[in-house]
């Protein structure tokens, strides 16, 4: 037995402060790809407490129909209520595949929906394909701390649920064509909610993810210790960037292994990469050499890492960076 084709795909979209979330536009691109490949019908779903304008934007970007949930209960219980509505839709149309963006909302809803439907879930996929032998669905994802490409086969329980890793698909653009927006509410029976939102607080001042940051400050042995990395963190905060490192700081216990950049760690491609006190072995450079611009700070002129630099600064990072932090603060004050 196998899937008789993937005829119905639900995309679960979301909004952010700026409107329809970028991850959702990427999700639409993924959906349209599978529509072209498999002839699937694409349903888009906007969960609880979302704006009408975002449903309209979604309707213009390519799905065949858009559903928006509509219920006042949802403001207080968005997590649970959205899933109840989504499951109702999944069962109503008998969906084959349900895709979410791998955001907090998508990760949360995907797990709830998969648990409730007792079906297979694959997180943070980068693609879906059909097995050439039996036609079953295969999810492609980056496994083992994003070091390797893994393929996993879904069983036959329907629907298949997956979250799609950000920045894999380009965001879909809006067109002049639009499709209908249907309203969908909570099922009639009374619902019991276990989670109640009491307050929405303003954005947390968190560093962006190392892999998605547009500015990366990386440190090596030359940073000298935890204090040195605290200084790099100050710099990263000023530039809205993230801090990474090479292997020696991990071995010394100054930094967590998950912040290591290189062939056995993370791969970064920021707009600006600033490497401090790094020798430049291939194990590190293979994880960052696609960066748009590379700044290397080192006090040894013969450091091989200078070969990678768009701009090299010859000097002691412990002297340069405090000046740099001060000057950037000055610049920001003058803005």
């Amino acid at each position, binding site marked *: 037995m196998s899937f008789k084709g993937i005829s119905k795909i639900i995309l679960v979209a979301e909004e952010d402060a700026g409107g329809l979330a970028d991850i959702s536009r990427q999700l639409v691109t993924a959906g349209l790809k599978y529509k072209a490949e498999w002839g699937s019908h694409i349903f888009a779903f906007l969960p609880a407490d979302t704006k009408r304008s975002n449903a309209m934007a979604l309707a213009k970007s390519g799905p065949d129909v858009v559903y928006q949930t509509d219920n006042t209960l949802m403001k207080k219980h968005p997590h649970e209520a959205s899933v109840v509505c989504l499951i109702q839709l999944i069962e109503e149309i008998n969906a084959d595949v349900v895709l979410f963006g791998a955001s907090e909302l998508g990760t949360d809803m995907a797990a709830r929906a998969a648990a409730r439907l007792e079906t297979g879930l694959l997180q943070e996929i980068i693609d879906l394909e059909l097995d050439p032998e039996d036609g079953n669905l295969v999810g492609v994802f980056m496994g083992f701390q994003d070091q390797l490409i893994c393929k996993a086969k879904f069983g036959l329980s329907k629907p298949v649920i997956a979250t799609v890793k950000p920045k894999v698909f380009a965001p879909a653009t809006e067109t002049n064509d639009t499709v209908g927006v249907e309203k969908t509410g909570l099922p009639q029976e009374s619902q019991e909610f276990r989670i109640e939102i009491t307050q929405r607080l303003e954005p947390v001042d968190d560093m962006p993810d190392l892999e998605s940051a547009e500015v990366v400050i990386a440190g090596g042995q030359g940073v000298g210790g935890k204090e040195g990395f605290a200084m790099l963190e100050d710099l990263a905060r000023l530039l809205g960037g993230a801090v990474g490192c090479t292997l020696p700081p991990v071995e010394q216990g100054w930094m967590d292994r998950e912040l290591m950049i290189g062939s056995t760690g993370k791969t970064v491609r920021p707009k600006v990469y600033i490497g401090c006190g790094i020798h430049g072995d291939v194990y590190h450079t293979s994880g960052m050499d696609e960066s748009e611009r590379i700044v290397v700070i080192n006090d040894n002129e013969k450091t091989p890492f200078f070969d990678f630099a768009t701009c090299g600064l010859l000097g002691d990072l412990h002297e340069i960076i405090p*000046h740099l932090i001060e000057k950037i603060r000055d610049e920001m004050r003058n803005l």
Partner: protein
Amino acid sequence: MNIAVYLKFEEDYKAYAEVDVATCVGCGVCAKVCPFNVPLVTKKETAEISPKRCQGCGVCVPYCKTNSIYMHYSLNTEAYSSDKGDPMGLRYPLDKNAIEAGLVLRDMVGGKVWILAEGPPQFEESVREALVMGADEGILVCDSKFLGSDHVASSLILEQAFKKIGDCDLLIAPQRNGHGEPLSSVAWVAERLGMSYIPFVKSLKPAEETVLVQQNWGGKLLEMSVSLPAALTVERGINEPRGLSLMAAARVMGKTVSHWSSEELNLDSSQIGEAGSHIRLKSIQALPRSKGKKRKGGDMLKGSPEVLAQTLVERLKEWGAL
């Protein structure tokens, strides 16, 4: 409040490089770039990579001019069968965050913290480390039949173990497992046992018959009141895990870690491992990797730290990073 902290061991992968001697010209570039000095150029003028010594990093692959090096990847399923495996302490920082979250809550309201770990025998060391941190009881759920379990099968194992502990109000787990994947099996357990489920937890406080939770929600924080029993997965930054002291280590020296197998959890082999899973790993491949692009035309700036900093500020402005 009785709290169970769930830690899960994840199987590593095995990898090694193999040289195709038919096309290898014995230039020795692989030997030069290998971080572990594994490749040898033999008298036959071809390279030889010992699969035993190869660390599987794959650095040599893009350097080979004749594309003669192939990587082989597979899941390392030996953890349960090898008795000489090294003891494994708590390897993932998030695991410590989850333990700490449980300990802090217990210290506020009383009760017990159970460590509920799933993994091979060597993983007992992790449970011990958690006991040294201050957990009250340690359990290792350990059975080679668990290998190959996906979220659904893992959740069944967790559910049975959680029920066997009995009378727990809270299940705490790290947000991501050791492979960096969201730990979703907790959602299944919550669903089946009628517990609240909250991922991305940034802070946790006890309240009357509920817990107050702050959740990271797309960069914003949602504050919510969550009914007990509840299952939570915690994020980095929820707390600063405590260190280990020798005193504490001495105190727990005589403590035993209970081992539970599939039989003790009343699990049938059709429910666990590959048989009980909806998703099966099919293949593992390397990422396309470059050998490191050097840039020509980059400039080297010299001068006083202050001048260098000023120049960099100008560049950052030019590049739109400021």
